[in-house]
């Protein structure tokens, strides 16, 4: 017997909110991607807890897929960030529209 499932869910929820806070409040593209990583990690913790709750290995299986998605997302995301930084010279997401659609601002 370890802890109740609800405590695992509470930990996962707090981590998810921290990641969401990071992604929503920080004005730095790298910190936004870090926030998304924290949220994925929180989801993984919830899945591992759910494996124990229902005594079924599907939860752990989905953590594998979360790892794959996180790795892909971070590699493409950082490539886009480096591309945007070379074009605009800053990490501010406000300058980001100019990279995707040039001429959208003034």
């Amino acid at each position, binding site marked *: *017997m*370890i*802890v*109740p*499932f*609800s*405590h*695992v*869910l*509470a*930990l996962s*929820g*707090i*981590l998810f*909110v*921290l*990641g969401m*806070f990071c992604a929503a*409040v*920080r*004005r*730095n593209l*790298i*910190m936004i*991607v*870090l*926030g998304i*990583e*924290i949220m994925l*990690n929180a989801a*993984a*913790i919830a899945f*591992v*807890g759910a*494996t*124990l*709750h229902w*005594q079924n*290995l599907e939860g*752990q*299986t989905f*953590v*594998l*897929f979360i*790892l*794959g*998605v996180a*790795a*892909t*997302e*971070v*590699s*493409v995301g*950082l*490539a*886009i960030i*480096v*591309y945007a930084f070379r074009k605009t*010279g800053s*990490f501010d997401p406000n300058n980001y529209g100019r990279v995707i659609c040039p001429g959208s601002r003034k």
Partner: protein
Amino acid sequence: MTLPGLLFYVLAATIIVTTGVAITRRNLVHAVVYLIFSYFGTAMLFYLLGAPLLAAFEVIIFAGAIMVLFLFVVIMIRTEHSEEDFFPLSQWIPAAASGLIYLAVAFLAALKAPGADTGLALLWATPREFALYVLRNYWFLIEVISMLLLIGLIGALQLGRTRGAKQAEEEA
């Protein structure tokens, strides 16, 4: 309280504190290093919850590969002019208030759900059992993930390559 329970709460507190410190750092290198601690804590948590293979993957992929990738980008790009301005307080107080209300409701719902105070029984998935389970039931999704990683690789290469070609054209 049993020893695994105590370990869980210690690990949970460590993970939350290191993550909270990480997301408030202005220096990107400090943030990434604090997050590495958070991921090591998560790996130990996975081991505690009976997932040794996933604990190893967490260290290798999250704490190893992904965070080192972040470090490379932070080092490669000069970070002196990465000063950022946070939102004014009046803008994010409503957002924080509504977020906290939802968090409180979710906690109440999770803690008052039926069976919420019985401890979890341990299910120890050895790497062999886990691998057999995954490859018997989800072999197709493994292929999908490998395709996704390949597509991500091609996308990252393309984003780097177009820049190089344009630069060569400008120089020529």
